[in-house]
């Protein structure tokens, strides 16, 4: 029985392979980076996570050029990498690293906001959210990000992540409860909510 030479997986020149991979993944890079940033809470970690995902995929061309819905497939792969593998390779526990990059965030949150006091309040809310989310497990955090930040429903996440609906719901329920409790425990909730309410109205 002869060995089969893998032709399909490497039928193109390196330059063409790079071009195909670039064309395939480029439309999804911004979304991947945004989700990775929300998973990790840090720009450099987000880039590292996406880079590792792309490197793994690029080495398996027979895998990455198959999915019919690459966007969904990429989010699932990113989620799996983040939850299952990425954390183990980090030198520090994520909970110690999970602080928003404030200088960077300030530049984004500043859009039109010039009042230092309001900005401080805004940062305080973000800090408390960040602190609350840092207490979540990787699984809970990922579900919360995809549901409450990215806008997917529990049913969509069940299909997207290939997880039982009950698992998605229970992770989400626990994540939301934990974030709410931690968020309320830090600082003055009423003040925070009023400021937040103003911000929402302002936007």
């Amino acid at each position: 029985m002869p060995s089969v030479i893998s032709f399909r997986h490497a039928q193109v020149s390196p330059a063409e392979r790079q071009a195909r991979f670039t064309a395939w993944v480029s439309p999804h890079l911004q979304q991947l980076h945004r989700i990775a940033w929300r998973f990790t809470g840090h720009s450099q970690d987000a880039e590292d996570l996406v880079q590792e995902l792309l490197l793994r995929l690029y080495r398996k061309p027979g895998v990455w050029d198959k999915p019919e819905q690459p966007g969904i497939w990429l989010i699932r792969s990113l989620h799996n990498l983040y939850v299952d593998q990425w954390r183990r390779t980090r030198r520090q526990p994520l909970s110690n690293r999970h602080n928003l990059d404030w200088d960077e965030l300030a530049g984004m949150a500043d859009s039109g906001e010039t009042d230092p006091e309001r900005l401080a309040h805004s940062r305080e809310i973000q800090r408390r959210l960040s602190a609350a989310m840092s207490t979540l497990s990787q699984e809970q955090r990922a579900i919360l990000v995809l549901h409450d930040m990215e806008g997917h429903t529990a049913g969509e996440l069940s299909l997207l992540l290939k997880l039982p609906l009950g698992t998605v719901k229970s992770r989400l329920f626990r994540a939301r409860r934990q974030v709410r409790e931690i968020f309320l425990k830090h600082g003055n909730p009423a003040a925070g909510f009023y400021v937040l309410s103003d911000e929402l109205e302002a936007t």
Partner: protein
Amino acid sequence: MNCEISQSLLDVPAEEIPAAARAQIQVHLETCAACRTAWHAQRLLGAALAAVPAPDFSEVAGQRLLARVFAFDTRRQQHTMVAAAAAAVLVAGLVTALTLTRYTQTPEYVFHNGTLILQSEQPTTVGVRFDSGSALANVRFTIDLPQGMQLAGQPGLRHVSWVGELRKGQNLLKLPVVAHAGTHGVLTAELSQNGGSRRFSLAVLASQPNPLAVRLWHGLTHQFDTGT
């Protein structure tokens, strides 16, 4: 509905709460200030989560990221090749034969008088077998198809090259091709490693379906050596 039930639903996603329960919650909130505050806070918290900004990731940043991915991959391949070179043997002396082999039960092509005969416009997977006296890593395979022939599903693609490995013994390459009527040329397969190479060539002819060719398939010996 009481406060306990109302607040137990705080962390359930809105889309998961049945409409009837939502209506009951609404009624309850109209009379219960504590639950109203809790639900308002939860709504704001959800809005705050949704409003968390994310850094912009520009097209340029994406290109830089991809460039790093490709550079990492290239370095890994170079490292592998250097490691393998010490024990590598020239492919020229080891790959002894290129052999056409029947890949499917359907006689989609025949080999007659040194020529591969294909049915025109018919996607066909040609089985090409390389016999190697030893396992070889980092072998560059280069296939060139004659004018009029292309890889099936890859319009116009007549040249492919990749790095792979050969196992000791028989190695089968499944080559999906399609040829236009009138194609008459030479298919070449070159295997190279460490500066040595071996080149095989095969005459190709595409014709209309021919019952004689089908019969020939069963009567011909398929193995041949076209090594040069």
